[in-house]
């Protein structure tokens, strides 16, 4: 019998598999996707949010625990578990040597991302390079990997894992780690979770999925509905970004983001503004715009800029609608020209231009306008003008299984002795809502490693260890 069965094939699953294998357990990893699509959403990621008290190779300055925690507290509005969050934060400061040993390379922050050069360590080549490195390392260490192997149900007796069913095959194992992702790829479930709004729309029908098509949430639903596992999070909460409306339904990834919001205005389908585009630096705000757009009629928005903005934001993957006048642009975007011009004229007239500086929270703001634009407000007056239609892009959902600092799945508030969870399936414990760049990989890495370590311990009949993996110890045993 296999010691540790890992269900899932992304970052958290691979971290668990590697840890368990390093601890001497036999490990079988089941990835539902074919090899070409392996790695789930991890293949689309680009960095890891890392605590550090002093400059560390690719990371500049310092990003102390308290600042990281305050950032997390702010974006989640307090919907987080401080004990688990701080555990993830501390683990993020020591895990990189372990990642490097398994072949992950880091690089300095990318051009145009200097805002996160202090807080985030970028993977060289991005998340797919990380996923490739982990699979190579896992295979070299003797982890068995099976692709196209979705698991649809588990046998659990009195909170104890017995076996998993994969395409009619019963697979027994001493312990199991669940790291099979959220349910963001499941359109039906998203529709059901978001329901119908006051306009009679089904908002989720207009969502695009930024990541994998394989996170169908089959196991998550099975655990919640059929095994009554303790749950965490709200099914409508997710990492959601405003992306180009022309993005593919799945796997559009990073390049479909529209990063010019803070440089112009955003109007909805009624050609009206609805939120302060200049509230804060874009990297701190991009993750709320998916939700904002989801609340607009038709779940769409239009980011409008003029030629002063060109070259100041990440170039978009698709060219924008372009026009030499604002009415022409409105017509091209299918917006009501009169309302659009009223909105733009009101905005342009309200701009109190100071010293424009996109690198600081500058003093260019509107006056007497609702909603205000509090920074980087400059009249949109220099042709040519550009417009990008936006849609909500779901990255991953936060509904998951409740866990603790052993990564155990819990039933009736009691931890399972041999069933663990990591990654998106439990990220909601730390992220009740909101998002800050790179924190998903911090959670996945910290909990994946805890889950793998504890699964290996449980397979030997030992009890689970509390708290993050101690990297000095991991070093000594390696």
């Amino acid at each position, binding site marked *: 019998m296999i010691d540790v069965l890992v269900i899932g094939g992304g970052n958290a699953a691979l971290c668990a598999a590697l840890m368990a294998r390093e601890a001497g357990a036999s490990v079988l990893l089941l990835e539902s996707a074919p090899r*070409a*699509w392996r790695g789930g959403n991890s*293949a*689309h990621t*680009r960095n890891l949010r890392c605590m550090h008290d002093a400059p560390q190779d690719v990371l500049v300055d310092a990003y102390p625990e308290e600042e990281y925690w305050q950032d997390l507290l702010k974006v989640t509005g307090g919907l987080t578990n401080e004990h688990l969050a701080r555990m993830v934060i501390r683990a993020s400061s020591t895990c990189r040597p372990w990642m490097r040993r398994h072949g992950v*390379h880091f*690089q*300095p922050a*990318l*051009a*145009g*991302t*200097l*805002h996160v050069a202090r807080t985030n360590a*970028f*993977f*060289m*080549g*991005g*998340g*797919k*390079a990380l996923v*490739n490195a982990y699979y*190579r390392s896992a295979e070299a260490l003797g982890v068995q990997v099976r692709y196209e192997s979705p698991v649809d149900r588990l046998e659990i007796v009195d909170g104890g894992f017995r076996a998993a069913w994969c395409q009619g095959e019963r697979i027994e194992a001493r312990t199991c780690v669940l790291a099979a992702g959220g349910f963001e790829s499941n359109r039906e479930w998203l529709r059901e979770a978001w329901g119908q709004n006051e306009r009679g729309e089904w908002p989720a029908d207009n969502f695009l999925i930024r990541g994998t098509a394989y996170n169908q949430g089959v196991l998550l639903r099975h655990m919640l509905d059929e095994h009554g596992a303790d749950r965490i999070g709200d099914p409508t909460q997710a990492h959601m970004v405003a992306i180009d409306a022309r993005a*593919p339904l799945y*796997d559009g*990834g*990073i*390049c*479909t*983001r529209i990063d010019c919001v803070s440089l112009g205005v955003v109007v909805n389908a009624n050609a009206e503004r609805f939120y302060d585009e200049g509230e804060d630096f874009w990297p701190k705000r991009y993750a709320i715009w998916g939700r904002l757009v989801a609340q607009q009629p038709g779940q769409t928005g239009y980011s409008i800029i003029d030629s002063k903005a*060109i*070259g*100041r*934001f*990440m*170039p*978009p*993957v698709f060219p924008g609608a372009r026009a030499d006048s604002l009415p022409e642009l409105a017509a091209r975007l299918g917006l009501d020209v009169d309302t659009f011009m009223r909105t733009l004229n009101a905005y342009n007239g309200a701009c109190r231009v100071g010293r424009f500086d*996109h*690198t600081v929270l500058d003093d260019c703001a509107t006056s007497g306008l609702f909603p205000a634009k509090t920074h980087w407000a400059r009249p949109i007056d220099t042709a040519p003008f550009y417009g990008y239609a936006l849609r909500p892009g779901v990255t991953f959902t936060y509904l998951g299984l409740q866990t603790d600092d052993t990564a155990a799945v819990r039933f009736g508030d009691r931890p399972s002795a041999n069933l663990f969870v990591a990654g998106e399936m439990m990220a909601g414990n730390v992220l009740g809502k909101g998002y800050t760049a790179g924190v998903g990989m911090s959670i996945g890495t910290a909990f994946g490693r805890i889950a793998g370590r504890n699964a290996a311990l449980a397979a030997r009949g030992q009890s689970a260890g509390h708290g993050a993996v101690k990297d000095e110890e991991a070093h000594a045993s390696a």
Partner: protein
Amino acid sequence: MQALEALTRDAKALANGTPVPMSAAETEVARVMQICNACRYCEGFCAVFPAMTRRLEFATADVHYLANLCHNCGACLHACQYAPPHEFAVNVPQAMATVRGQTYSDYAWPPALGSLYRRNGLTLSLALVAALTLFLVLGAVLQGGGLAALWKTDLGNDFYNLFPHNLLVGLFAPVFLFVVLALAMGVRAFWKDVKPATSGADVGGAAAGEAAHDVLRLKYLDGGHGDGCHNEDDAYTLKRRRAHHLTFYGFALCFAATSLGTIYHYAFGWVAPYDLPSVPKLLGAAGGVLMVLGTAGLWHLNRTRHPLHGDAAQKPMDLGFIALLFLVAASGLALWLARATPALALLLCLHLGAVMALFATLPYGKFAHGVFRTAALLRYNTEKRQPNPIGLGSD
């Protein structure tokens, strides 16, 4: 013919005042770069991506420049979230390689020869070796002595007894000079297109130094992290870099041996053949061994490359060049080892035929990559020292 059609098309377009349309391969590079520029995950791998981030649009000259900057290491393909089977079907190394091949023939001088060689590299290389060898054999036979001239023991280790020194100089010097001229004309045309697109600044000392370092160390086959590039799969390997180093430095040693021999001959009157432990012999023997090992490695790596790397249509050109280099080195070594045997005459014909074939095809085959890539690296190291025209980096 293709080159002629392209010229006619471009001339018409210019006459009509419309911009020269891009070829399908160039359009593909521009499309892919648009996607990459919105992602940028691969920035740490090589020079192509930092160069890309200095641009928002990719015109023909940018595409030619970036294509020749690409070393076809494969890192960005294996790391790409948009690589096939993704619907964006991003394959940077392949798109770049296709354009690169096109630039070798578009910039070749005179142009007609470029497309001729590119179409059937391996066959043509070997046929050329055979033809030239036969030509030399016939020459030796007709010179006197008949067939017996080819299997003689009285050459006394001295190949000049078969082909006198001045005959060899008369054969090789014009070819060598033509090669230098053709390559210079080709890279001059490339430079004229690419320089304005890469800041227009002149190459400074520091940029030239760094470019030389990048070329001589093959910096961009190290993956940006030192573990190397890709060959058959997503694992990093230093094999390609090492095999290329063996080939390159082996070639350089052989070239040095020949140059030194020329100096010995004309300046000091020390006439070949040289034997150990003379400096030309040491250089030549070491260079020959390195080239044999290096080209054998490159051949093997080329045959086992991941099918999505590079442009499959250029494999014959790659292999033709590798085969010629191998043949030159191996026949040179054999010639030395068999210097006291009757096989000397035939081996000499083969060796000279191979060297002649190699030189004759240098400007129109894979060798061009060294010249064009060096030019691209000079432009890269110059451009990156100029202020970034895109304000994004500071935001």
